[in-house]
């Protein structure tokens, strides 16, 4: 066999059909007799439902039925993570609505147009209630309560006992109140589901075609909610047009679609609009962080205190829980920090429930720490690079357990930093920056650095894979991950080709269908290559072991002497003409009534911790406040790289979304809780024109926790990029006395900060956090139930 494919730029095998427009999405399915659904959504952020009259809508042309909660009697929505069990949500609101966009009724019609036209005929009486939009305001003792029986708007919260004492050893303390703003997931394809009822005489009781990143998890939830045997439910994810954490589980609208299909014994379909997507798909980030870093005057960190408020939105959305989970777990970052105290609150607001978005709690941790480090550098008049290097954990310290209980596998944090600075030409950039300041140019240069570590492949689960050889000699992979653009078909086929000597084009790939793959964890938390790929590797190894035994029998040799030849045949070592092709062996096994294949459930030795360094170069127009990203250098270390092109693609996409959070995106609401950025005219997703050229590279520090040595890459560049850009903008303004600016860095915000600093009145980055943090219960000893739960 020629040299290994692994580590080479193999072109993606899944692209031709996508590029030719032959992708198949849920909305492309043709289903006879399908009912089209549309949802009547609440225009109020908080109100009592006093009456619903559906008669006019029912009588409208093409309408088959109109249902409210009382008609369908559906089980509560089960979120990916439960923050508070007493904040249950029913798929259609019953007596109260808690955010704008919450479904109240559903119209089922013979066409999508008929369903949409009938929506406004549903007559609903609302009695508006006081609204809480801001998570800090939600903590006030007299704030309107979303769930009166809770006693407050705190869905969850806990603190470490130590508190301010962790800063006792400090000579200098820097503090900031940091907003990690709410962002929308914005997959190009929104939610979509088509439910086809089956029955006892058919293969399945129900078949669900759905745009999801985890079909098996959705099957589990659907089976439990509707009382089916799991094996009687088939879930299929066809092509999925992006998910980014937003497509986990059975959503409220999904459950209603299932309910309507069952009620009518007809297929039912729901495909959401863009505005619906921006209102109802869980939003991400949405944290307010009160963070304090203690240091000695030489820049050595002595302690870190964090009080982090996560915005759950309505119904204790699980994104708010990240403040207690992954953000806490990753709070220590890449640094040696002797003492750490952390408190987290997940608060209820009358806004869209929050959930996972690319990074899910870890970008917030990195942004918090990286901002503090830069504040400290400014305070101590140090270079941001030097202060980082002074505090890095050293390569010899791994494996390393952090103060928050994360078990870091491997790391060499200066490695990507050194490379990123080299690629950036750091010294030259500093010289150019100084030149512009000296010339009093209104357009300044900013150079921002971030060094991060994150957690991937966590959650404790493993992954299933099988590899079988058909009688024509082709291999078929079946795997429990559910790729939707990440290049799994390519990467996993490369592993099989490498292990079995079967050409890439003779490897078939099966995923995302619970009828064809028995179990699986789906795709999220940057888990797929390290878990799914490792499972494919293990199954291939087992298959080869079996094949050698079977070939040995037929070639009358010892299994130890069977080797894979350069032509990809199973031959006897030292006997050139004694060999079998894979097809011959598969046929021989079939003749004996067997099947040439192997499967496995791979379990890793723990989560992995990718890391990296980003350098952002921006121009800041001090007169208009406009920020232009000029360059972005991303050096991400995801362990061993299988296909550099695919890794680069993840870095590009990740950095684009991270840069965009820094500069443009912000999902916002008015004081009444109406979303004011619910269209793509107002919600600014990144486009090619404003993205700088991305300069990506990798260092490769392997993990010992899986056979590939691979760590996740899907979210790394999102995590690394946002703080680099934020730090770059503030770096440009450092000499003016501007210390902090919240995200996104809009022209108006930047201009105001420059003006205030020029007037000798710079905005203070700190104010005392809400008193609610002091009243939280103390976190119990031992591992937190939320620890290492970074599976989205």
């Amino acid at each position, binding site marked *: 066999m020629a040299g290994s494919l692994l580590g080479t730029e193999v072109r993606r095998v899944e692209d031709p059909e996508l590029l030719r427009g032959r992708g198949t999405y849920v909305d492309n399915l043709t289903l006879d007799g399908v009912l089209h659904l549309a949802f009547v959504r609440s225009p109020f952020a908080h109100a009592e439902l006093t009456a619903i009259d559906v008669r006019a809508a029912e009588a409208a042309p093409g309408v088959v039925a109109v249902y409210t909660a009382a008609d369908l009697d559906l089980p509560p929505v089960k979120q990916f993570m439960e923050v508070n069990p007493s904040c249950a949500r029913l798929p259609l609101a019953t007596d109260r609505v808690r955010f704008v966009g919450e479904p109240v009724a559903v119209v089922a019609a013979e066409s999508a147009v008929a369903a949409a036209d009938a929506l406004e005929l549903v007559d609903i009486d609302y009695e508006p209630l006081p609204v809480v939009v801001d998570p800090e305001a939600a903590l006030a003792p007299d704030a309107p309560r979303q769930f009166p029986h809770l006693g407050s708007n705190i869905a969850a919260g806990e603190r470490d006992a130590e508190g301010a004492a962790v800063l006792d050893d400090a000579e200098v303390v820097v503090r900031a109140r940091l907003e990690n703003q709410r962002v929308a997931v914005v997959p190009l394809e929104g939610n979509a589901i088509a439910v086809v009822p089956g029955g006892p005489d058919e293969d399945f009781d129900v078949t669900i075609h759905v745009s999801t990143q985890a079909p098996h998890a959705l099957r589990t939830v659907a089976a439990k909610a509707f009382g089916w045997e799991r094996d009687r439910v088939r879930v299929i994810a066809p092509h999925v047009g992006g998910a980014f954490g937003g497509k986990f589980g059975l959503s409220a609208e999904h459950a209603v679609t299932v309910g309507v299909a069952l009620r009518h014994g007809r297929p039912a379909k729901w495909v959401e609009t863009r*505005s619906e997507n921006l209102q109802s798909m869980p939003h991400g980030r949405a944290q307010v962080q009160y963070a304090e870093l203690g240091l000695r005057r030489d820049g050595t960190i002595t302690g870190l205190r964090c009080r982090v408020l996560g915005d759950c939105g309505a119904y204790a959305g699980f994104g708010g829980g990240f403040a207690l989970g992954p953000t806490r777990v990753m709070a220590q970052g890449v640094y040696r920090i002797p003492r750490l105290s952390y408190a987290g609150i997940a608060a209820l607001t009358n806004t869209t429930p929050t959930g996972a978005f690319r990074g899910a709690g870890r970008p917030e941790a990195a942004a918090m720490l990286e901002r503090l480090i830069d504040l400290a550098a400014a305070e101590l008049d140090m270079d941001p690079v030097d202060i980082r290097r002074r505090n890095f954990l050293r390569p010899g310290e791994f494996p390393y357990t952090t103060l928050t209980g994360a078990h870091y596998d491997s790391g060499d944090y200066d490695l990507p930093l050194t490379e990123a600075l080299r690629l950036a030409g750091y010294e030259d950039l500093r010289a150019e920056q100084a030149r512009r300041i000296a010339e009093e140019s209104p357009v300044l240069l900013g150079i921002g650095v971030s060094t991060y570590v994150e957690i991937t492949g966590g959650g404790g689960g493993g992954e299933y894979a099988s590899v079988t050889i058909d009688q024509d000699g082709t291999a078929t992979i079946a795997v429990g991950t559910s790729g939707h653009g990440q290049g799994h078909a390519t990467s996993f086929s490369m592993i099989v080709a490498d292990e079995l000597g079967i050409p890439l084009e003779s490897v078939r790939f099966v995923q995302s269908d619970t009828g064809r793959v028995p179990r699986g964890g789906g795709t999220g938390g940057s888990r797929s290559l390290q878990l799914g790929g490792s499972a494919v590797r293990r199954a291939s190894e087992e298959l080869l072991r079996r094949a050698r035994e079977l070939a040995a029998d037929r070639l009358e040799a010892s299994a130890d002497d069977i080797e894979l030849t350069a032509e990809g045949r199973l031959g006897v070592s030292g006997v050139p003409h004694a060999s079998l092709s894979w097809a011959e062996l598969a046929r021989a096994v079939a003749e004996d009534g067997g099947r040439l294949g192997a499967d496995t459930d791979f379990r890793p030795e723990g989560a992995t911790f990718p890391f990296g360094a980003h350098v952002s170069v921006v121009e800041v127009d001090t*007169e*208009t*406040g*406009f920020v232009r990203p000029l360059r972005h250098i991303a050096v991400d270390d995801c362990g061993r790289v299988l296909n550099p092109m695919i890794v680069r693609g993840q870095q590009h996409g990740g950095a684009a979304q991270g840069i965009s959070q820094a*500069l*443009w995106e912000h999902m*916002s609401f008015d004081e009444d809780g109406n979303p*004011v*950025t619910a*269209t793509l*005219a*107002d919600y*600014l997703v990144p*486009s090619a*024109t*404003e993205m700088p050229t991305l300069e990506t590279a990798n260092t490769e520090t392997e993990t010992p926790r899986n056979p590939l040595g691979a760590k996740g890459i899907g979210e790394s560049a999102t995590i690394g990029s946002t703080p680099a850009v934020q730090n770059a903008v503030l770096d440009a303004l450092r000499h003016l006395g501007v210390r902090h600016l919240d995200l*996104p860095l*809009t*022209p*108006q915000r930047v*201009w*105001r900060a420059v*003006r205030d600093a020029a007037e000798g009145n710079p905005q203070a980055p700190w104010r005392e956090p809400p008193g609610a943090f002091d009243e939280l219960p103390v976190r119990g000893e031992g591992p937190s139930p939320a620890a290492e739960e970074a599976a989205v």
Partner: protein
Amino acid sequence: MDFLRPTTLDEALAAKAERPGAVPIAGGTDVMVELNFDHRRPEALLDLTGVGELAEWSRSSGSDGEIRLGAGVPYTRVITELGGRLPGLAMASRTVGSPQIRNRGTVGGNLGSASPAGDTHPVLLVTGARVEVASVRGTRLIPATEFYTGVKRNALAPDELVTAVHLPEATGPQQFAKVGTRNAMVIAVCSFALALDPDRAAARAAIGSAAPTPRRAVAAERFLAEELPWGTPGPLRDSLKRRFGELVAEATEPIDDVRGTAAYRRHALAVLARRTLTWAWNDQQERSPSCA
């Protein structure tokens, strides 16, 4: 909702006379957004994309060189075909939306919507454009300065359609600039256009998104006419540029909204005014024979 599809201008005018409530639609980049969000629900749409007469531009035979730009000519053609003759309009057209939107959107549509944030309005004001409107009763020309009557309101009678815009060819430097959260695909926080006419020692300046209607900054124009050292080569004094910026800011009547505060708009317009004046003046210096 009826969808009317005239194929000639006469048919279109007859339809508009018969159905004054029909909303004209050309590229649809404004109208479709409003329909999609249910901000309006007209009794009928009058699709003008089939009217060939509207999609052409021509140059008058006189020596003064006036362009008659049909209301249905998309921005892309303004940029590629008229960039040399109408530089200010082409600059503004380049900042509209994305390539796809520039392929569909039209100056006529911008006028029909009359949004204070429409990108081309400040340029039409500073170039002395006249809006040609027609009805079954006849045709008239409305100076751009009289066209905008209120927020999203214009001087059209219910039976009239915008058929063209008449713009003099540039006789001096023209500039356009805007500020937004990003450069493309975003509604401007504020915008500014400037035209210098060295032969007449005159200047025109206009603002967008900073008052109920697009408007000229008349005091700032007068200041430039009097203070610009028209015949003298060399860069402009900083104090002159600053004062011009202040006068432009004083001409605004901005509001606080989700895109920006009034204070920021006022400030940013002063900056845009200073900068565009610098660029236009430098441009003028390069053209001027005394520098050659």
